[in-house]
C-alpha cells in the first residue's frame, strides 16, 4: 500500500485526473471556488463536491488574455484561461467571493461567458463585528438557497451540521500535522506540508482526513531527520507553485510555518459546532480567515507573530505574486512590524505563473547565507 505521503503527492500532482476520476466514480456535481473564505461546508451539505480552484502548472496562458489584462494576477488569468479551454471539465459551477479586484470582477465576465450551470458571488465582510457576522450569515443563507435551487433539494440543518463536523475534523488533523513542525527536527518538510494542504482541496474531506490519520501514524514511525538550523515562515497570497517550496528548501532550510491562502489560512480557524444557527457559526468562523484583502495589518501581524513564536521561526520570506495588489499593499507596514517588533529578518521575492526559479534561487540562497552568518 502506498504511504500516505505518496498518495497525497500523487493526488496533488495528478489533480485533474484524480478529480475527473472522482466525478466519474461518484457522479457528484462539483463546485469550484476561490480563496479560503468560501465555506466548503455549504457545498458539501448540498450533496455537491467543493473544489478549490488553482491553475495547473503545465501550459502558458493563451486564450485568457482576450478577456483579462496582463496586469492582473497571472494565477487568476491562468485559472480563467484553463476554464475557457475546458481544463476543468469536471466542474459544474463556481462560487466567487468578494476578495481581490481581479477575482471579484471576474464574476461578471464569468457569468457572461457562463461556462457552468451554477455561478454565484459571496460578499465576504471585511470586518468581524456583530453587524458584519449577522450580514455574512444572511449572505450565506442566500447562497444556500441558490445551491438548493441548483440541486432541487433542501439543505437540512442536520446535513449542514454534519458538513461542519467533517470539515472541522479535517482542519483539526491539518493542525496536528502542522504542530509536528514545531519540533527541533520537524518530521516533514515544508514542501511536504504544502502537498498535505493542497491535497485537501482535491480529495474528499473524509478520505483526506483518513489519509491525515495514516500520515500522522507514519510520521510517528519516521526516523528522526537532522535538526534544522534555519526555520522559515513563508507569507503571501496564493503560493501554489510547488517548485518554489522545493527550491527554498533545497538551500538546506526548512519552511516550518506559513501564512498563505493555500496553507494555514485555509484551516487555522474552526467553526463552532454548538451554535444555534449553523449559518451564523460558518459566518463567524470564515470571517476570521486572515486573507490579505479582508484583514488589517494589525491582525495579520498578530497571526504571523504568534506563528513566529510558536514555530521558532528565524526568517520570513514574503513570496508575493506579480500584480497581487492586496498582499503588496500590506507588505511594507507588515514587514516593518516584523523587523521592528519581533526582530526577524525578511526577504521579499516576486513570483509569477510559470516563473523561472533560477533568479529567485540566487536571492533565497543569499538570504539564507545572511541568516547563517
Amino acid at each position, binding site marked *: 500500500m502506498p504511504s500516505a505521503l505518496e498518495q497525497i503527492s500523487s493526488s496533488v500532482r495528478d489533480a485533474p485526473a484524480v478529480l475527473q476520476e472522482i466525478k466519474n466514480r461518484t457522479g457528484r456535481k462539483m463546485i469550484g471556488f476561490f480563496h479560503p473564505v468560501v465555506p466548503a461546508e455549504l457545498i458539501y451539505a448540498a450533496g455537491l463536491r467543493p473544489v478549490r480552484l488553482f491553475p495547473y502548472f503545465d501550459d502558458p496562458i493563451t486564450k485568457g488574455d482576450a478577456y483579462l*489584462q496582463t496586469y492582473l494576477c497571472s494565477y487568476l488569468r491562468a485559472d480563467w484561461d484553463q476554464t475557457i479551454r475546458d481544463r476543468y471539465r469536471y466542474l459544474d459551477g463556481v462560487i466567487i467571493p468578494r476578495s481581490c479586484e481581479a477575482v*471579484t470582477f471576474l464574476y*461578471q465576465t464569468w457569468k457572461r461567458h457562463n461556462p457552468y450551470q451554477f455561478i454565484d458571488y459571496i460578499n465576504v465582510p471585511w470586518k468581524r463585528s456583530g453587524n458584519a457576522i449577522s450580514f455574512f450569515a444572511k449572505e450565506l443563507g442566500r447562497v444556500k438557497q441558490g445551491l438548493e435551487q441548483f440541486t432541487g433539494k433542501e439543505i437540512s440543518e442536520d446535513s449542514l451540521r454534519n458538513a461542519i463536523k467533517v470539515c472541522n475534523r479535517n482542519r483539526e488533523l491539518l493542525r496536528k500535522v502542522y504542530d509536528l513542525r514545531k519540533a527541533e527536527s520537524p518530521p516533514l518538510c515544508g514542501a511536504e506540508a504544502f502537498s498535505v494542504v493542497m491535497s485537501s482541496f482535491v480529495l474528499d474531506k473524509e478520505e483526506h482526513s483518513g489519509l491525515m490519520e495514516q500520515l500522522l501514524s507514519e510520521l510517528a514511525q519516521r526516523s528522526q531527520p537532522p535538526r534544522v538550523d534555519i526555520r522559515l515562515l513563508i507569507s503571501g497570497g496564493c503560493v501554489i507553485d510547488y517548485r518554489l517550496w522545493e527550491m527554498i528548501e533545497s538551500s538546506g532550510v526548512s519552511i516550518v510555518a506559513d501564512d498563505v491562502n493555500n496553507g494555514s489560512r485555509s484551516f487555522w480557524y474552526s467553526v463552532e459546532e454548538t451554535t444555534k444557527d449553523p449559518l451564523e457559526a460558518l459566518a463567524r468562523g470564515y470571517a476570521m480567515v486572515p486573507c490579505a484583502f479582508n484583514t488589517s495589518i494589525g491582525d495579520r501581524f498578530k497571526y504571523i507573530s504568534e506563528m513566529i513564536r510558536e514555530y521558532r521561526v528565524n526568517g520570513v520570506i514574503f513570496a508575493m505574486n506579480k500584480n497581487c495588489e492586496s498582499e503588496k499593499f500590506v507588505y511594507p*507596514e507588515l514587514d516593518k512590524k516584523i523587523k521592528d517588533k519581533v526582530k526577524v529578518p525578511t526577504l521579499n521575492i516576486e513570483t509569477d505563473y510559470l516563473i523561472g526559479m533560477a533568479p529567485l534561487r540566487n536571492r533565497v540562497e543569499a538570504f539564507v547565507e545572511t541568516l547563517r552568518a
Partner: protein
Amino acid sequence: MAEKKRERPAFNSDIAAAMSKHYRDVQTNKPMAYTLMSSNPLIEVAYAAGIQPAFPENYACVCAARHASEEYCETAEAHNYAPDVCSYCRNNLGYIYDPGGSPPMGGIGEPDLLLLTTSACTHYFKWWDALHEIYDKPLVYVNTPRVMEPQSVPDYYMDYAMREIEYAIADIEKITWVKITNDRLSQAVKLSGEVVDYWQKLLELQKAVPCPMDLSDLTNALFVLIVLVGTQEGVDLMKKIYDETRQRVAEGKGILSKEEESHRLLWINIPFWYKLGIFGYFEDRGCVFPFSDYTQYIWGTTRMDGSKPLESLARKALGGELNTSVDDQIGKLLKDIKDYHVDGVIAHSNRSCRVLSVGVLDAVKIIRQELNIPAVVLDCDHTDERVYSGATIINGIDAFLEMLR
C-alpha cells in the same frame, strides 16, 4: 500635442477658486479627516459633524495634473510600495514620506482621523489601514457589500449598510465630542440631494449638439459633486455650472461649433490626469466627449432625500459604478451611446483601477458588436505618468480616428 486655444466655460475658474479654498481649508480647519471619493456616505456625515474632509484621491489628480505624481510614486516605491499598487495610493504615500519643498496646492496636511468606506476597490481598505499604521489616528470604517446584481439588491444589504453608517456616526461622535443631530444630518443630505439634482440635469444637457462641455470640463465639475456634496457652497456652485451650461445650450454654443463637431465619443474609465490636453488633441480633430462612464455612473446616481438621511446615505454607499463594475454598466453604456449620439469609443485600460478595467475588454467587444461603432483600448495609468507612452497612445488614437472617418 499643441491644441487650439478654445474658450472654456467660465465656471472652470469658479471651480478652480473653490478648489484653492478647499485646499486652504484642509490645511487650516480642524478636525480634518482623510476620506474617500467613491460613493462615500461619510462625506455628508463629516460635514454634518463639522469635520473638514480631505481627499487623497483628488489630491493625486491635482499632483498628476501638475506633474508631481511621478516623484511621489517613486518615493512610495522606495518605501516598498510596489508599482502594482494603485498610483493614487502611491502618490499619497510618497507625499507622506516626502512632500518636497512646495507640494501642489500647499499639500493635503496630516489628518486627525481617517474615514473609510469600502464601497469601491479593495485598495480603499488596504490604503486606509496603512494610513492608520502610519499616523496612528482613529479609523472609522463603514463596510458595505459589493452589489453585483443591482436589479435585485437584497433588503439585508441595505440593513447592513444603514447599521454600519449608524455605528460610524456613533464612533465619530465619540472621537469629536460633537453630536450629529438628525437635523444636521438631514440638512447635509438635503444639500447633497440638491447638488445631485443639478448634476443629473447637467448630464442631460450634454446630449445637445453641439456639446456644451467636453470631458475636461465635466471632470472639473466632478470636484463639486464629490468634495462639496453636503454643503451650501456645493449647491451654489453646481447651480452656477448648470445655469451657464443651460445658457450655452440655449445659445447653441459648444466646445466645438456645430460645424466643427464631427464626432462624439465615449471615454471609458478615468482620464490620464497628467495629460488632460489629450482632449484638446481630439477637439482639434473635430471630436468631443459628451460623457464617460466615470462621470456618468459613479457619483450623483442616488436620489438623496433629506427626510430619510440614513436610507439615502446607505443607498449612496451601495450605488455607483465603483461598487458594481464596468461590466454591469454595459447595458447603460449601450443606451447612453445612442442617447448622447456617440459614434466612437476610447477605452482606457487603467492598470491602477481594476474596478473600472476588468470588464473593459468585454465592454468594448459588446459595444462593437451591438452598435457597430469603432472602439480602441489604450493601456495606461490614471496618475503614474511613467506608464504613459506618448507615441503608443497617439498612434492608437490616430488609428482609431482613421477608422472613425
